[in-house]
């Protein structure tokens, strides 16, 4: 049974003449870890600001935890944990002071949990925020985002400032921990290889619209690279081809609806090889793929078979 925590229905937003979101629709189910993918400037942060009621929409409907962010922003923010990309906090406060300061803003704040997280994340509590390293700053931001036991955790490219070990720890331990608690995590990122192991569901935002939303596994099954003779490409309906590049004597195509495409090649007797793609490559095919246009680009390395 569907129990969406976040619903965007044909949401549009423009800043002056620049349309940032174009009738964007998406749904996030309760308990899921949702990866919100897009290039820089695709509209991810704008969508997140709208989720929190920090920006008004021009058109469409938004519902978060059953609330309208524009009309009930405070009730909503009390139930959401948010960590902004490059979050700037008051530099003069000590980390401990910041946690005590923030506590009364959240009715469900759990100070013992804050203490526990601060210890686990190794936040130096007596250090002034301006003297924290980038990683420590992100970890303090996480404690602030989690200590009130939010139903929904919104993370806007949170691992950006962390070193590889911290990033891995963040993704595996923290997200897994949140998943274990049944929290819904809305994770915006462009570091796809980090999102891939933890995300249940993925949405790809490009130029203000969601161009694909499905489960991570379904996406991997549905989008594949196929190597075949150049003239054999015509067998396929052009609409299902996301990317097409010459590769020596062959053509490398990335198709959506891989099962149907493979069946078609088999029925037509076309020789072909199927290559699995990772999320990075799938994302690339969606947002910068050359589709059915005649490719004039020089041959580029393609994904290696696994």
């Amino acid at each position, binding site marked *: 049974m569907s129990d969406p925590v976040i619903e965007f229905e044909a949401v549009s937003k423009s800043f002056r003449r620049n349309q940032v979101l174009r009738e964007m629709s998406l749904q996030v189910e309760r308990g899921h870890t949702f990866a919100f993918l897009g290039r820089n*400037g695709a509209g991810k942060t704008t969508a997140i600001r709208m989720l929190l009621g920090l920006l008004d929409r021009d058109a469409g409907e938004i519902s978060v935890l059953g609330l309208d962010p524009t009309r009930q922003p405070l009730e909503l923010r009390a139930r959401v944990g948010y960590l902004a990309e490059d979050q700037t906090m*008051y530099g003069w*406060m000590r980390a401990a*002071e910041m946690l*005590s300061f923030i506590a009364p803003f959240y009715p469900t704040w759990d100070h013992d949990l804050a203490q526990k997280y601060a210890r686990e994340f190794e936040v130096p509590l007596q250090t002034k925020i301006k003297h924290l390293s980038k990683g420590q700053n992100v970890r303090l931001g996480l404690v602030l985002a989690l200590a009130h036991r939010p139903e929904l955790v919104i993370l806007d490219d949170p691992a950006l400032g962390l070193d590889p070990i911290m990033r891995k720890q963040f993704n595996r331990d923290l997200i897994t921990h949140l998943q274990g608690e049944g929290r819904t995590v809305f994770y915006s990122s462009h570091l796809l290889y980090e999102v891939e192991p933890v995300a249940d569901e993925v949405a790809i935002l490009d130029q203000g619209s969601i161009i694909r939303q499905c489960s991570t596994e379904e996406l991997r099954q549905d989008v594949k690279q196929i190597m075949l003779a150049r003239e054999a490409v015509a067998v396929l309906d052009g609409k299902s081809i996301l990317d097409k590049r010459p590769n020596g004597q062959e053509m490398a195509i990335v198709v959506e609806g891989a099962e149907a495409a493979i069946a078609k090649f088999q029925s037509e007797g076309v020789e072909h090889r199927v290559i699995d793609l990772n999320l990075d490559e799938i994302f690339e095919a969606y947002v910068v793929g050359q589709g059915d246009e005649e490719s004039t680009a020089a041959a580029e390395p393609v994904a290696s078979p696994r």
Partner: protein
Amino acid sequence: MNDLPQPMRSVWHSLLWKEWHEHKWKLAALTAVSVGALIAFDLVAPDSLLSALIGIPTAFCILAGTFLGMSTAGGESGRKTLPFLQSLPIPMWQPGAVKLSMAAVTAILPLLVFIVVFWVWWTFLWFFSIDISQAGIHRFHYHPWGIPNWLAATAAGSALGVSSLLLWMAAMGSNRSDEVRSGAIGFLIICMVWFVLASGLELAEKWHLPTLKYGVKVLFAAAPGGVAFVGIDKQLENHFVWWPHFLAATLGHGCLLAWYLRRFGKVVPGSSRSDGKTLALAGAKYQHLAPPMRSRLTAIAWKQVRETGPLVLMAIGSIFLMTTLAYLFNDRRVSIHEVGQTLSGITMSVGFFVALVAGIGVFLEDLKPRVDDFWRSRPVNYLLWFGVKFVVGAVILITTFGLLMLLAHWLIDRSFLRNAMHPILTAGFFGLVFLLIYTLSMATYCVLRQPLYAAVLTIGLLMGGWIAFLWICHDFFGDSLLSWQTALVLLLLSQVAATVLAWQAVKRNWQIAAI
């Protein structure tokens, strides 16, 4: 010890604690400046100490109202902490209200301390025979608001005036990206409000419309800082018809307060533009790219012109508005000669303010944490970066105000070009003073990285330096050193010292964060 302290009791407790922490040193600094000014006044002009009771609170109201207003309006945005505040589950009017209230306390308390110190000074230090509570009446022949105690009336008038100015600055400057932009917009709007009121008064005079004239005078109470002037309107003293003014002040400031609280933090500064631009860049395949700038020097100079230019243009607009205002407010017909004198006076006063703000503005953006890393990580020669920014900012400032001063002198004496030495020397001397203010505020900002503290410290240093100079000349050298040549040498030495300090602070990335 890595345990958390207890959480604060309530949202109000948290907000008050935060604002108190952010204002306590401002309060101390402003108190020191107001009391320091009194001591300075007594050292320089002990015979006219009574004038200090008007002059110091007036100057204090303008400076404290403006700078605290700027800080209230643009401080959170300038420090990039506004998005964090916005993400909290509280209505934004709450932090807005606490911030404004604490700023008002920070503005009013030093005034009250000043009044008390003045009374002690007057009564117990100098043993003047005149009762200070009546002294103003002897000298100026009026009771502000009809309050019999002149000291209390001055305290009330100053407190109301500074609160009004603070509220106007905060409301008009809110949601800008930093303090300097907030201050520039707020200052321009305040000038325009007074311009409109003065024009109304002029029209009423011209067309003999006593009701309109009365109406405009009533509206003064709602204008920025105008409530302080209402009390010294002698007609009020005679008739005590003060309730329309009271109503105008209450309604006007009430609406402004509601507007400020409604708007505070509602917009993420620059978000709309930056988001739009990013998308435009990502989406557009073909964009015209301007040719690269010819050299590093040109590039840095261009940047500085873009940063200082708007402020100076606003200042020119304000100066012409204020000169027109002064012309319109004058009861009698004034001559071109007098207009020139007014223009000269206003240029000097606004010049002081603009030099102070422009100096702070030179490195305001560059020394913000992430921006600082950005430009320092480029292959840029620090000396070139510092030197070009400093010189271009100074040239814009000095050229603009020099031309305005020359225009003022031309209006005063159309034949001055035939005998131009004196006005040019005078303009040059004041140009050096402006340059020192500009350099000193730049240096204090580079060291403190806090606009308001930099402004207060600059004023303190200028005042202290001037007093020390007069005191040393007077007490140790019997006025034999008191000449323009000595003043010039000291100006140049101070200029060199301030420039070296600013350069070292930029080069070595020194900073003494006040909070």
